[in-house]
């Protein structure tokens, strides 16, 4: 099988999985990066959010072949980025995580927002997280967390 090459969390990576494998499965099962979660498998819930060349995508909808030559960042990479450490502390302080299953996806989407727009308005945060579903928090504490991290 022809391997797929991409940069994963800053490291060159080569994977010889079938090209139509879901990126989500490759990350979780081949690369053991289980911080990216599966909530629906059809691109609705955002639990599997990762960054491909800086854009938030649902990794359950992305075939491996599509990331050839791309830069992929997962929650495991995002939390190592010193720019986003503040997201972690603010999610703790403001109660942004409850059951936690949507939280890595929320962090990834929030990081992408702050990368492009370091001081977003509240409605811009809501808009950026509209593709990430949460069933526990009612969202306000997540938005509070991101808002605090951007100050």
């Amino acid at each position, binding site marked *: 099988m022809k391997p797929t090459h991409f940069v994963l969390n800053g490291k060159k990576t080569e994977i010889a999985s079938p090209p139509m494998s879901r990126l989500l499965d490759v990350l979780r099962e081949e690369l053991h990066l289980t911080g990216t979660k599966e909530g629906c498998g059809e691109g609705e819930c955002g639990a599997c959010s990762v960054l491909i060349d800086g854009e938030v995508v649902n990794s359950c909808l992305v075939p491996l072949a599509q990331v050839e030559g791309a830069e992929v960042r997962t929650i495991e990479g995002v939390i190592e980025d010193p720019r986003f450490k503040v997201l972690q502390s603010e999610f703790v302080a403001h109660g942004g995580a*409850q059951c936690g299953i949507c939280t890595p996806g929320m962090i990834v989407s929030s990081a992408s927002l702050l990368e492009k727009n370091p001081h977003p308005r509240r409605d811009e945060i809501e808009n950026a997280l509209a593709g990430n579903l949460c069933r526990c928090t*009612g969202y306000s504490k997540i938005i509070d967390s991101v808002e605090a991290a951007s100050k």
Partner: protein
Amino acid sequence: MLKSTFVGKSVPRKEALSKITGAAKYIDDLSFPGMIHGVTVRSPVARGRLKKISFEGDLPWNEITQVTAKDIPGENCVAVILKEQPMLVDGMINHPEEPIVLLAHPDRALLEKARKNVKFEIEALPSVLSIDDALSKKAVVWGSDNILKSYLVEKGDISQAFAEADLIVEGEYTTGAQEQLYIEPNGMIAVANPKDGVTVWGSLQCPFYVHKALKTLFGLPDDKIRVIQVETGGGFGGKEDYPSLIAGHAALLAWKSGRPVKIIYDRAEDMAATTKRHPSRTRHKTAVTKEGKILGMDIDFVLDGGAYLTLSSVVLSRGTIHAPGPYVVPHVRIKSAAVATNTPPHGAFRGFGAPQSIFALERHLDVVAARLGLSPEEIRRRNFIHQGQQTATSQTIKEPVDFDKLMDRAFEMSHYHSKIKRFEIENKTSPIKKGIGFAAFMHGSGFTGSGEVYLASVAGVEATSEGRIRVLASSTEIGQGKNTVFAQIVADALCVDVGLVDVAQPDTSVVPNSGPTVASRTTSVVGKLVEDAAKGLQATLRQSGFLGESYTSAQFQEACLVYLEKFGSLKTLSQYKAPPGIFWDDEKYRGDAYGTFAWAVYVAEVSVDTRTFEVKVDDFVAVQEIGRVVNPLLAQGQIEGGVIQALGYAIYENVIWKDGRMANNRMTNYIIPTTMDVPRVQVHFEEVPYAYGAAGSKGIGELPMDGPAPAVINAIAHATGGDFKHIPLMPEDLMRILT
């Protein structure tokens, strides 16, 4: 009262960082050497007789582990309240998606093909698919009359109320099913063999429910079954009873294959097959005086239980007891029933029957008020229950309850009165109609009636060899904050730093049975056991002479280590005892239904676009009295999350049924609220410490599910003048009713 250092503070969630960084391991994140995958092959029909199973297609069937009912070593049942639901179909099929065959193999792609190639020969039988069909006995699918369970609650003489009434107002209200939609689908891993017994790891709320089900399924003794809860991505009641099936299925496949087996449901399977909130129908006939005094409530409350009893009797019980709301009414009659239909069994879901009956009552009271020419506020104020008065089950309210104060606070925070005036003027000229509505309600803490006494829960604390304290309870962390709250309660009981307290992972081979994680009981009821056990441990240390009257955390640790060195172990347990003066009569359904209640008034403000029939909830105020608040940040999180889940119940979440099966079992066509749909919920707590709850607390988890639906629908009615009797109220319903 204990000295509070940590109780009352927003101590950060203990496991927050591991969840935020993605390090926390949920069931699908675990993998065992030699592990294979399991899938479930399910019934395509609502009701029928299974004649034949065949394994077809060009597939390596000899490599695929196959399990049917005949492979079950013990009893073929899901032991919960009764043993009526089979673990796998054996002859009779009673609902769509009922499990019939289990398959396991290392290759998931092959398993998917195999699942499609298991064929059933089924003799279809007539089915019952609605409450009306069940009650009219269109077919008899359960017992002799399709009644799973019924209750009668009586207080006073309802006929006297009707004789004395100035006005009698009738109404019928219905609620749809609601999908749980925890973001983590159900899943289990099992290891099972005759020598070691059965061990399962899973996403679940109630380790000892699963334990009991596995014990019965395999016919094994207690110590041969072990259940371990791993990080669980939301529960809401959806992981109360159904995980027993998945654990049983994974264990049967593991038993037969000799390998660890993992079953993870995909979203479509989870939505189609697992439990939802019971659909309901409530009929009210209310006798009132012209001054707005309620003389009598005659209530007929029916739940659609689905194909098996499962938990419907207890869901019905809570819905029945909450049906007359927080009002003092001299004459009450409540007839209630859970009926059998050929849909997957409906189950526990946050609120547990109360959101259904409270929706009906709080909507109905607005209608009664309008008929009397009173405001919605006045009819409630004239009938609120107060300390010393009796509920419909003749429970005397012993603690202070001040609904007028809760209502004043909620109206002040929401600017209720000024908005009513403003909207009246603005609505005349705008196609967007604004409205404001509210609901007043209560939620009983802990199990209903004698439930807590029968459970006789045990929880404890122990000192570890590192000189730390570990809480021992089977209560699970499902996002609600159990780990943190238990640590706060224990830290204050022991007068040590909260960082010194760990909470054991629920593992039935390690922790005592503190009961299920349900019924808003974990903080208040189980927390009390944990608190008492901690005080017992402190007393033991003092009696031993190793601990003085006052001490630092370091001195406490030192005392624990000295004690451990001398005596080997330091562990105290505490068992549930009912608060004094509590009495419940199961026969007459009368007495103290709950140790205490949480009380609330919620206000919703909406905009209704009369061109598109879109509803937007612009503001929401949640005022409640929940005893003492142990952790304000976590408590707010519970209220905010519950309110938004209930907004979904009111206006977004529509389960569409086709032949007894959920037709829209995908996140693309079953819509829950997103960041774009929700208001900022304003939360306010009145604190009146409850003497018999941990650190003065009452139950909180379910309360916020009860009030938002009637508050929102009352607001939409206020905005539009429409008469709404059903939730979910979808835009197409609004268009039909208003045009």
